[in-house]
């Protein structure tokens, strides 16, 4: 087998500078987005957007909400419902 001499051309140096530069930029960008996420979430900013169905949490608050039932409500057939039926 013939060993070819490995010659470092100036071109390779430039290419390496580009690759390392790009690596640093991409890592810095990822860190930046991560940091922004942390800040936004810990500040409690509104993170929910439209997701193809109405979301109660992003709707404006109803000034006259429907009245809630006074007592506790149990699903029919559960021990809780039976206990309510049996009570006078």
């Amino acid at each position, binding site marked *: 087998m013939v060993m070819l001499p490995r010659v470092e051309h100036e*071109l390779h140096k430039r*290419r390496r*500078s*580009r690759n390392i*530069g790009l690596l640093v930029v991409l890592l810095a960008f990822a860190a*930046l987005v991560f*940091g*922004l996420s942390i*800040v*936004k979430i810990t500040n409690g900013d509104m993170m929910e957007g439209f997701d193809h169905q109405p979301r109660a949490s992003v709707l404006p608050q109803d000034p006259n909400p429907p009245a809630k039932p006074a007592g506790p409500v149990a699903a029919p057939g559960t021990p809780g419902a039976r206990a309510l039926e049996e009570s006078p």
Partner: protein
Amino acid sequence: MADTNAYEGPAEAGFGDYVALLKPRVMSLVVFTAFVGLWIAPVPMNPFVAFCSVLFIALGGGASGALNMWYDSDIDAVMKRTAGRPVPSGRVSRDDALAVGLALSGLSVMMLGLAANWFAAGFLAFTIFFYAVVYTIWLKRSTPQNIVIGGAAGAFPPMIGWACATGGIGLESLLMFALIFFWTPPHFWALALFMNNDYTKAGVPMLTVTHGRRVTRRHIFGYTLVLAPFAIWLAFTSVGGPFYLAVSAVLNVMFIAGGWQILRRSEEQAEADGYKVEKRYFRQSLYYTFLHFLALLVQHWMGGW
């Protein structure tokens, strides 16, 4: 002995060539003025979000610089001052410059919208459009008023910074705009007075080429007079105060005096001493904006009236 070189194709660009495409020196002014606009605004911002916002505004400025180098590579090659730029010197192809410019424009606007707000992002998009299309493509080669209108692009960054914090526009941000907008023409025309040959060769219709040096000297002095009231007015708004007023008064008196000197000189005098006064005035104009914005920052730290 003959040196043989197997491949002499297009030159390979290093990372620095792509950085040069973003005009880092122009960017430094953008970073500083945008930061001041953001910091002195009445709505406080989280420091990390503020840092990211300024970074993305700078990136948008860099993107418009790359688009400018893409479109202007033909005249950049002719002018001595710009012949060493990455595109005319052949280290980066025109297509690459366009691709970098467009990609970074989109990225910077999207990220500014996510980091700050969408009003500021829209403003940044408009600024990039204004510099790359309105100034570079439409005006630069067609009218001697090119830098007057193009100066608006350089004047937007403090307004974008202000918009990042407040989500809108205020009298203060408009006055910061006016400060850079009316400063740009005397700054560049002073440069044109001693770099005239470059612009003549490239066929760029600078005022010195189309209307002569006498008219240019009159215009420089005129703009220093227009500029001063706006700079002083800023002292009496919510971001101003006695310190800013004092700094601004001194700087404006000096700037008007410099403009007056330029007006009084004849071409023979200028050529005799190698444009000494014009060169000094150009340097002085750089300090003028820098110190105004620095004074705003110091005034904010000291508290206003």
